[in-house]
Each structure stands twice: as structure tokens, then as C-alpha cells.
């Protein structure tokens, strides 16, 4: 069952090679252009995703949902087209589709720039210099696309099974090489890889079904499939909509069972202003990834400017895939409230892109208001307090933050930590590595001393010295045991942190 995925550069010879191979073998041929067409028919806003690469990398993060749907659609299309066992696919980043499945032949092609320029000149009616400029810029755009959509470096040779340089090789010979390679035992599907492919297809299909269902289209869901069982994980605040998930997947073909489960772990992060590019963001998301947790944001306005605002949960901007609207794609502007959300929406969007968002909302007030806002949804495993009460001056701000922390810990029975302590408490960096090394050496030294000098130690504990100075043994033990306990527990704590057990 050969599935050949060819990555071709624009105006290279990928299309010609793929067509030749399909003609020679009779295997079905599918191109990226067909996927693009299908994406438009399905309602995925692929145009926005594509142009955001040229216009602004910042917009790209807002399009995380479109990116995930596009990848789901490509996976589904490849699986469905290859259901009879064979496929030749070609197009941009073709080699990066369906990662993690063995048995696929991933092919890269190198074509001379001069040849591509000549092709672009003819096809697009461009003078030579403009054609060169067009291709050079397009190659850069594609690099960015690969980085953003596939999280891969376009120069990485390890993502190819075969790379053909077409500068000195005819298309016929390249086709013959591809054909012979595709028939090798290494590129045959095993039962295991077939099952993986089926599961990937099922999960992709489920994602598209959920996005197309009006009630589930805006939900932050994580979908996976194992042996025909689809598991959909939703956020606790979406519990009321959980029934819709099963309903949206009722018609899903190939699905033996659907399991809907609520995310067990949530981190609540409270701050006055958020910055998705800040150090705190990296640390909180790092911890969320380790714990498999979702992060909920609470923007606290201690000065009460938000009092008139009704707290509104900011979530993934969904919208059903049925985009055939009567506006012709020209949408009304959002109401401009002039309201500064202090980075809340941008940070939620970044979390959505990372698949870690549990939403976010602003509130005004202090301890009591925070507790009132979160007590009904208290499934947090950690509360992180960042910059708060900023207008009150350093000392007052520290005191009020500490009081808020104590209040939250007492009322919600959840561990509370200041964002500044996150790294030292939960993450492992250079400082922790040096600390671990120092404490390991101290532990070894203590054990070496104890086992090397047993005679004098036993003398103090029960020998001649003990009979002379009975109080010395008690003081020695009282001081020594806590020191050993502290040193040893620090070492074990840091080791557990390395192996992700907090």
C-alpha cells in the first residue's frame, strides 16, 4: 500500500513528477490545490490563514482554529483518498502531512532556481527579474508557513525519506526511482501503522464534525482517537454544552464509541495585565504543558474601572463552518468600546493556539470578588498570582497580594503561588541544576562521614564520651537529623521535578 507524499516548490517539477508516477502506476493522484478548494467548500477560512503569513505574523496566532481545521481536513482527505491502499499527493509541505505514521514515503524535490524562474516567467507572464523576486519571496513565505503550520524547519533533512535533485535527472528516471522506492518493504503499511492512520483520520473527521456543529463550533476541545474510540476533552466551564459533543458526533462513521471527558486540571492565573510574550506566560504555559492542564485567566482590576463592565468570558472565536453567508465575505465591524483589556484577549488567543486555553475574564474588586467569581468553578490545582494592585505602591501591593493569596488558599483550598516563585517551585532550570548538584555532594559527604567515622560517632552515642557528656549526644542528634532530612528531601524533590512528579 504505497502512499507517496511529494513536497514540491512552486514552479518546480513536483506536479509533473506526481502526474507521471500516477500515470505509470494507476495510483490515485491528489494535489494541494484540491485540498484548498475543498477547504473553501467546507467553510475553513484558509484565505485568511494564507495571507496572514505575508501580512502579519501576529494575525497568525488568531487563526489557530483555522490552522487546526486545515490540518484535520488534509489528514481526512489523504485518508479517504488512500482508502483503497495507494495515493500520490503533491504540493506545499506534502512531506509533513500525517506525521508519526510509518510506511509513508515522504519525498523532497530540488529544482534549479533558473528553471523555476523560466517556468514562472512563462506561466505568470513576468519579466525575469520580477519572476526571480516573486519566487524568492514566495520561498520565504513558504518557509514561514512550514514553521507556523507544521512547527517544522523547512531545511530539516530528517523529515524526508528520499530527496531527489532534479537538476541533472529526467522526470522519467525520477519517476522510476520513486516507483521502485515506494514498493520497498519499508514503505508498506503494517497493521499498526494502518490502525494509526485510521485513528488519525477518525480524529480529524471528528474535529471537522465538531467545528461544523453550531453548538460545539466555539468550544475549546481536544480530540483524539484510539482504536476507533474518540475521546473529546472539554473545559469545566463548558460542562453545560457537553451533551452537544455526543450529538455532533452521532453520525461519525468508523467511530465505535465517543467518550466526553472534562479536563481534570486547571491553573487559574490572576493578574492586572497580561502579556503573551512575557516571561510569566512562558513559565505558566510550561507548567500547564507538564501537567496537561488548561490555563484560565482572570484579569483583576483593583481600581474598579471595570465595575460597569459585565464580566464576559473570552473564548475561542468559533463560528460554524457553514460560512455561506449573505454578506459576500464583508463583515460588520466589531463594536468599538474603547475598552482596554490589558492583553487579556491576546493572551487567551495565544493559549488557544497552544491548546491550553480555559478562557479568561475581567473582574473588579479584590479578594471577595475573586472568590465569588471562581468558587462555582473551583477545580483548580494551582492559583498563580502575578502583578496585582500595581497602583498601590510596592509595599502595599506585596501585602495585598499576600492577603489575597491567603484568602484564596483558605476559602478555595487550593495551593496559591506568586508568579515569581513558579520557576523555583515547579520548573527545572540552571539554578535548580546547580542546587541539585550541591545538595547531592552534601548528601554524599554526610553519608561518607557517617560510614567512615562510625567509631567516634558510636562513642558519642553510647560509648565513653556518651557516659562523660550525656547531653552532647542529644544535642548532636537534634541538630544532625533535621539537617540530613532537609538535604536529602531537597535532592529527592529536585529529582522528582526532573521526572515531572511534583
Amino acid at each position, binding site marked *: 500500500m504505497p502512499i507517496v507524499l511529494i513536497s514540491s516548490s512552486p514552479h518546480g517539477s513536483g506536479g509533473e513528477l506526481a502526474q507521471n508516477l500516477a500515470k505509470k502506476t494507476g495510483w490515485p493522484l491528489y494535489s494541494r490545490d484540491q485540498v484548498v478548494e475543498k477547504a473553501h467548500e467546507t467553510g475553513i477560512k484558509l484565505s485568511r490563514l*494564507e495571507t496572514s503569513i505575508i*501580512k502579519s505574523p501576529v494575525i497568525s496566532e488568531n487563526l489557530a482554529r483555522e490552522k487546526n481545521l486545515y490540518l484535520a481536513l488534509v489528514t481526512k482527505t489523504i485518508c479517504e483518498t488512500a482508502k483503497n491502499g495507494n495515493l500520490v499527493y503533491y504540493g*506545499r509541505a506534502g512531506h509533513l502531512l500525517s506525521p508519526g505514521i510509518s510506511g509513508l514515503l515522504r519525498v523532497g524535490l530540488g529544482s534549479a532556481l533558473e528553471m523555476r524562474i523560466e517556468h514562472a516567467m512563462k506561466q505568470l507572464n513576468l519579466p525575469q527579474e520580477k519572476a526571480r523576486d516573486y519566487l524568492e519571496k514566495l520561498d520565504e513565505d513558504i518557509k514561514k508557513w512550514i514553521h507556523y503550520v507544521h512547527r517544522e524547519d523547512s531545511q530539516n533533512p530528517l523529515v524526508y525519506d528520499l530527496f531527489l535533485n532534479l537538476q541533472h535527472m529526467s522526470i522519467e528516471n525520477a519517476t522510476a526511482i520513486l516507483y521502485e522506492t515506494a514498493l520497498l518493504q519499508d514503505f508498506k503499511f503494517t497493521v499498526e501503522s494502518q490502525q494509526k492512520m485510521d485513528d488519525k483520520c477518525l480524529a480529524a473527521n471528528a474535529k471537522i464534525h465538531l467545528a461544523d456543529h453550531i453548538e460545539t463550533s466555539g468550544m475549546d476541545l481536544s480530540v483524539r482517537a484510539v482504536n476507533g474510540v474518540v475521546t473529546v476533552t472539554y473545559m469545566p466551564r463548558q460542562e453545560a454544552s457537553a451533551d452537544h459533543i455526543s450529538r455532533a458526533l452521532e453520525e461519525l462513521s468508523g467511530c465505535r464509541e465517543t467518550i466526553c471527558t472534562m479536563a481534570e486540571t486547571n491553573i487559574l492565573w490572576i493578574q492586572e495585565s497580561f502579556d503573551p510574550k512575557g516571561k510569566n506566560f512562558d513559565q505558566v504555559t510550561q507548567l500547564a504543558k507538564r501537567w496537561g492542564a488548561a490555563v484560565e485567566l482572570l484579569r483583576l482590576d483593583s481600581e474598579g474601572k471595570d465595575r460597569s463592565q459585565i464580566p464576559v468570558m473570552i473564548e475561542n472565536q468559533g463560528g460554524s463552518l457553514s460560512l455561506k453567508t449573505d454578506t459576500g*465575505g464583508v*463583515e460588520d465591524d466589531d463594536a468599538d468600546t474603547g475598552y482596554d483589556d490589558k492583553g487579556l484577549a491576546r493572551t487567551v488567543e495565544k493559549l488557544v493556539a497552544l491548546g491550553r486555553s480555559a478562557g479568561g475574564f475581567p473582574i473588579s474588586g479584590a479578594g471577595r470578588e475573586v472568590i465569588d467569581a471562581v468558587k462555582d468553578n473551583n477545580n483548580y490545582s494551582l492559583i498563580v498570582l502575578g502583578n496585582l494592585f500595581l497602583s498601590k505602591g510596592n509595599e502595599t501591593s506585596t501585602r495585598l497580594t499576600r492577603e489575597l493569596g491567603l484568602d484564596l488558599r483558605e476559602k478555595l483550598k487550593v495551593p496559591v503561588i506568586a508568579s515569581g516563585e513558579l520557576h523555583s517551585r515547579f520548573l527545572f532550570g540552571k539554578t535548580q541544576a546547580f542546587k541539585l548538584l550541591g545538595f547531592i555532594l552534601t548528601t554524599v559527604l554526610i553519608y561518607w562521614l557517617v560510614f567512615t567515622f562510625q567509631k567516634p560517632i558510636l562513642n558519642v552515642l553510647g560509648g565513653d564520651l556518651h557516659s562523660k557528656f550525656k547531653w552532647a549526644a542529644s544535642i548532636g542528634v537534634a541538630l544532625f537529623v533535621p539537617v540530613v532530612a532537609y538535604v536529602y528531601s531537597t535532592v529527592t524533590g529536585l529529582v522528582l521535578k526532573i521526572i515531572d512528579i511534583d
Partner: protein
Amino acid sequence: MPIQILVLDDEKIVGERLKASLEKEGHTLEIFINPVAALNRIKEKVFDVVVTDIRMDDVDGIQVLEEVRKKSQKTKVIMITGYATLEVARESLTKGAFDFIAKPFKLKEIRGAIQKAEDALQAEEN
């Protein structure tokens, strides 16, 4: 500064919505749903800005862009499409499009692009 804008999109609603929004800004608009009729008008008159869809029957937006460039180097062409790819966007920009907007878009995006075109026209005049 009010400017002369030609809008070409084979979906009538697009022209109607852009007209309603951009005329409020004081601009003068001519709306076309037929690309051939729009090309004839472009041959007759130099517009400050041409807003054109890319994917249409008979004539595509790239051809419109090329016609505008033949007639006037000054006119700013803004491409709009729901079928954009990196390749098409890059081709449009290489061929002299001023901006490229993917559908669906908010009205403020097109107003922003028109404003930028207006600024560029003014800068060229000075």
C-alpha cells in the same frame, strides 16, 4: 481627501456593502459586477483606487490589475478574495497590487487599506 474608487466583485452584495461604508467617508464609488464592463470603464477613466475580486467568471482579478497598470501607474489596486493562497497573493503584489485582503474581512480592514492608498497618493503628489 475624497477619492474616486472603482469596485469590482461578481457578488452584488460586496459592492453594496462597500458603497454604503466608503461613501460615508466622502469617497465616490462606481460599482461593477461584470468584469468586462469594469475593464471598459477602467480604459475610459483613471481611478484613484480599484478594488477587485480575484476569482470571477470570464476575467480574473489579475487581468484587471494588469489592465489598470497599463492605463495608469498611479492607481492603487486592492485585491480581495475568498480563495487566496500565498502564491496568488505574492503574484498580485509582484504585479503591482497595493494591498491584498482575504475574505471574510471586516469593513474597517478595507477602510484602512483605502486610507493607506489615499496617504500614498498624497505622498506621491507632494
